[in-house]
């Protein structure tokens, strides 16, 4: 029984998947991805975050924001996600990815695909204006800015919607973790004990007890 349980957990540990965060600039994709990364690491997962800003300065240098360039950008990200997912990693992509067909293609290509709509009203994103881009876009200084002068096509059937103007980052992240459990990508068992092997844990416990801490 116990051994079987461990096998189950082993299998889960090696099941790769891609969390695809989509939403307006400033909706909170990057912020959520960082907390999510830590949470997943607690489960002993290998995690790779493909943040759009990092991707655009490396993998997709030179690409602009036309529909065509945006599609290429997403194709490349999806390709890397696919490779990592195939090899058992937990992958998080945090590109705006405004076009539905591009996301659907990514879903097909990657397979274990968890689309999360990071939803936040445009006014709130513009108010946050984390990068100061909305100010420029609204003044017309940036062309083709998603939500202002370029379309954003909301997901029709995402695995989950998180509403960052109504939830804290922790809540949104918790919902995503819950969804991953539901989808069978991570085990519902608490991950906390994973740091120590059972023998190590026994030794630490013994030591802390002698030290009077517990």
């Amino acid at each position, binding site marked *: 029984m116990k051994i079987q349980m461990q096998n189950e957990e082993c299998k889960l540990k090696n099941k790769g998947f891609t969390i695809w965060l989509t939403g307006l600039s400033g909706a909170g994709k990057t912020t959520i991805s960082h*907390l999510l990364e*830590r*949470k997943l*690491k*607690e489960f002993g997962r290998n995690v790779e975050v493909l943040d759009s800003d990092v991707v655009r300065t490396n993998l997709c240098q030179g690409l602009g924001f036309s529909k065509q360039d945006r599609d290429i950008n997403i194709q490349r990200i999806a390709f890397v996600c696919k490779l990592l997912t195939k090899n058992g990693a937990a992958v998080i992509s945090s590109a705006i990815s405004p076009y539905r067909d591009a996301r659907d293609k990514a879903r097909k290509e990657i397979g274990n695909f968890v689309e999360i709509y990071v939803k936040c009203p445009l006014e709130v994103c513009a108010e946050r204006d984390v990068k100061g881009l909305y100010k420029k876009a609204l003044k017309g200084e940036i062309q083709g800015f998603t939500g202002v002068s370029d379309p954003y096509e909301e997901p029709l059937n995402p695995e989950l919607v998180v509403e960052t103007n109504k939830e804290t980052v*922790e809540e949104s992240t918790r919902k995503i973790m819950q969804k991953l459990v539901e989808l069978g990508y991570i085990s519902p068992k*608490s991950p*906390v*004990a*994973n*740091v*120590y092997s059972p023998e*190590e*844990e026994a*030794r*630490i*416990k013994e*030591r*802390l*007890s*002698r*030290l*009077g*801490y*517990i």
Partner: protein
Amino acid sequence: MVINKKKVFVLGLDSMPPELLFDRWLDQLPNIKRLISNSIYGEMKSTIPAITCPAWVSMMTSANPGRLGLYGFRNRSSYDYEGLSFASANTIHQDTVWDILSKMGKKVVVIGVPMTYPPRPVNGCMVTCFMTPDTKCDYTYPHELKTEVESISNGYILDVGEFRSDNKEPVLKTIYNMTEKRFRLTRHFIRSKEWDFFMVVEMGPDRIHHAFWKYFDQEHPKHIPGSKYQDAILNYYKYLDEEIGETLNLLSDDTLILVVSDHGAKKMIGGICINEWLIQNGYLKLVQYPAESTPFNKLIVDWENTMVWGEGGYYGRIFMNVKDREPRGVLAPQHYEHFRNELIRKLEDLRDENGRNINTKAFKPEDIYTECNGIPPDLIVYYGDLFWRSIGSVGNRTIWASENDTGPDDANHSQYGIFIMRNGKSQYGMRREGVTLYDIAPTILNYMDIQVPVDMEGEVLQ
């Protein structure tokens, strides 16, 4: 042009009490005294609970234990009765000062700060803490650093192993050994590594307090006059002072120096066997009362007739058996608050063997924290204002214990630790009040001209 790089050096002394360092022995500690004469210094308020974990983490993140979801070394990971799970670096979700600095491209060195195991990547070097199982583990970042640590220290010591021994001699010896190695390594890194931020925590003071307090403190219930260990703690402080002097000598005058502790220490009068008390008050029922003192997790509890159980430690934690929350919960949610208040009243009325009120304080997590992430205990208790510890085991038929269930223990933690800050301004030994450990992280970042994250809870010390 040489840009004057602002450096910060933090020395952590676990469990250093202001009463001993500042008020009692300062004149015998020339290096610390000299440092203080150019610093602001004083008491520093710890977290509730005043314990190593979460205190160091709260200090380095400026986030309260509730936000961290860290209520002790071990925390509930589910509402079942399986006991508590260990926290580690992997369960800390707030950025520490060195995480923030690493991201900003600053070079950091971190040695021995509690709750840094398993090592996580930093922009520099990390040697983990006493929560590392042993030196066979990967306890450095980068991985290869371990060879250097082992060779410089000639066998690094993470903690005092055989602590609860009646044979005090080896305990004392290991404490000195451990401290000597840590300072040797510290000086080696100060000289050989590139760094903007350097932090090292020495556990020695905590270990020596717990093992040797009764020998010097005439008010300790188990004080032994004229013992050869009478000056054990003082002598260790003098030794520390030398190590500190030698280390601070390596730092330039414009380095911000902080000497801090996570909490203080005070004599331990005794222990409250909380589960005995709960049994006597009809709140807890065992299937069978044990023949000898038995740890709580080894007992068979009659959960259907149990409302509350408690955990041992330097402070107490109380858990309530709530219907639809715990697997066999009995306390109806609508009675939860009323019952919890009743429990607080009774706990705060706890007496010693002579019928004197011991001044216990019980806290509701939601009253003392801005958020309660994870699963907080239902109550956090300071028995006798921390002059008494909490004991979880059952079997002695009395609620008072003069010995800890895992062996003798001389000292408990106290709410106020110390801070000393030399920031280059002429401060002339000013004693400062009202400082909390939440102030340390913002002070460091501000000094390094880095914007303090808005959710940090402390104030910048100037």
